[in-house]
């Protein structure tokens, strides 16, 4: 499967996120990969230590991605859920398992460049074993017509002494309607770092994200960062929840939000709770506009107010 046809528009949208598409197609780069074109599996490439299984169902696929015990991968595993149609339904049921002592980076891309009424749903389960390093990066591109409806739900279990990093970015193009629910359960001595960024540019864009981290094991640690920007009537609502349910666990939630223009709604709010008397959970939040002094400093370099704001948003949401 080395010379597969893959929609150019989807590949182009990946390039915008600084992804080298040469590495991306099967037969080219070194890593394992699974590529979907709408409801069809277009490419699947296993490598030593990685098992990929995919089955097409009526509106999408069921997939298993398994990193074998002790396997330490240098190249990322690529998952691409692309649709270049305008409308339709894509449903994905992935199960991602990292066995004990494994190390992996998974790069997932959800690209819908032409969406005008396209529904993408994902129900994923992650099981990360003991002593793993697991990095999950998900970038989205939903085209320029605010026509995607995207609703991923994920349940994530992080085993003892494992490190889990999660980066979710939706900052290019339009949003459409996005609703994300993420639950992460952190076991003893595990570390969670999760960063979520979204930018709602127009009144047709709405993002709702609820990320929850449950610190269930002794000494589990987490940092959850949520960065939201909304302009021209866009809506971005983010809720970052952290619960400390074990002795000596330590969680922190940091939220930044920037609202621009009339009618925009932007919330990035931390919620913290501790049921164990020895747990420590903290939060910080910044709201509203950029400081006037920042804007003045950029304007003194010849930028207009609008240009200065765009630069500051890019800096805030930057990769």
């Amino acid at each position, binding site marked *: 499967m080395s010379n597969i046809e893959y929609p150019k528009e989807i590949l182009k949208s990946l390039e915008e996120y600084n992804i080298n598409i040469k590495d991306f197609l099967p037969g080219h780069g070194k890593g394992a990969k699974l590529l979907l074109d709408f409801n069809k599996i277009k490419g699947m490439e296993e490598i030593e230590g990685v098992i990929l299984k995919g089955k097409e169902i009526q509106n999408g696929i069921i997939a298993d991605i398994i990193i074998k015990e002790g396997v330490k991968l240098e190249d990322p595993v690529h998952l691409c859920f692309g649709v270049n149609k305008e409308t339709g339904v894509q449903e994905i049921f992935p199960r991602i398992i990292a066995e004990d002592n494994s190390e992996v980076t998974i790069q997932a891309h959800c690209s819908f460049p032409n969406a005008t009424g396209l529904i993408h749903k994902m129900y994923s389960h992650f099981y990360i074993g003991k002593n793993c390093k697991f990095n999950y990066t998900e970038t989205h591109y939903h085209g320029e017509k605010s026509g995607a409806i995207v609703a991923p739900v994920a349940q994530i279990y992080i085993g003892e002494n494992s490190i889990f990093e999660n980066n979710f970015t939706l900052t290019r193009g339009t949003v459409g309607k996005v609703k994300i629910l993420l639950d992460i359960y952190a076991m003893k001595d595990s570390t969670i770092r999760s960063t979520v960024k979204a930018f709602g540019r127009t009144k047709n864009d709405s993002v709702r994200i609820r990320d929850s981290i449950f610190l269930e094991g002794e000494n589990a640690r987490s940092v959850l960062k949520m960065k939201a920007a909304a302009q021209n009537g866009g809506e971005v609502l983010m809720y970052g929840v952290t619960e400390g349910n074990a002795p000596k666990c330590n969680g922190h939630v940091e939220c930044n939000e920037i609202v621009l223009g009339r009618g925009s709604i932007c919330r990035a709010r931390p919620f913290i709770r501790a049921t164990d008397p020895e747990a420590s959970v903290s939060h910080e939040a910044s709201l509203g506009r950029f*400081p006037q*002094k*920042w804007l*003045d*400093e*950029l*304007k*003194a*370099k*010849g*930028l*207009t*107010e609008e240009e200065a704001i765009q*630069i*500051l948003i*890019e*800096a*805030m*949401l*930057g990769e």
Partner: protein
Amino acid sequence: MLLELKGVTIPTFDQKCNIVNNISFSVKEKSIHSIIGPNGSGKSTLAYSIMGLPTYKISKGQILFDGQDITNMNITERAKLGITLAWQEPARIDGLTVFKYVSLGIKDKSNQKENVIKALKTVNLEPERYLNRYIDETLSGGERKRIELAATIAMKPRLIILDEPTAGLDLIVIEDFLNIFNRIKELNMTILLITHREDIGMVSDYATLLWRGDEIITSTFPEVMIRYCAKAGLKEYCKRTVFQGEKTGCFDSDYIDRIFREEESK
């Protein structure tokens, strides 16, 4: 004259009182012109007003740049004419790289990188070590100030207003900054240098003394320094520093005594 202030008065934002009163002086093209004065005398206020910050609007008077009345222009318009300001405490912004920041004011986008590198070298920063860093809290105070200078130099402005560029820097670094100011001057830019330190002011060709919002004198730097000392009642200090400098050999002890007597009799 590159910059002319004519009877400039700046009130506080609530208009209740004036921070500076009726200031008039001119800045010659390709010179270093200092504004000196003690803490709170209105130096930064004057700088912000020349840059066009809306909270420091002038209530009386006129500001001319290269003969053009800029009194009613906003910050961006003034910056596009070639005026820029390096703040006393430049902002720390997460996520903005040194490269991006220094390149902001470069109009010619074709050889941006080259110009950024050149600007960083002018302020003695090794480009490879700084280009990809962020202008956030991880930079030291001195590094942040150098980057601010680089960003203003990269714009190739005609007038750079430097507000306390050496505040918080140690002696070794200050010497280096004086060299950088001379380098900027060689690039045909004009510097309006705000400082309350006489060792920094020494690099300047002219100076203006502000005292509680009033302009006392605009002249050569040593002359202005003598007035500053007389105002502050620092006679011994004045004789030690101003009188002895090589550059200031033209002032004898009698002259200084006379200025001090004049000031006391006021």
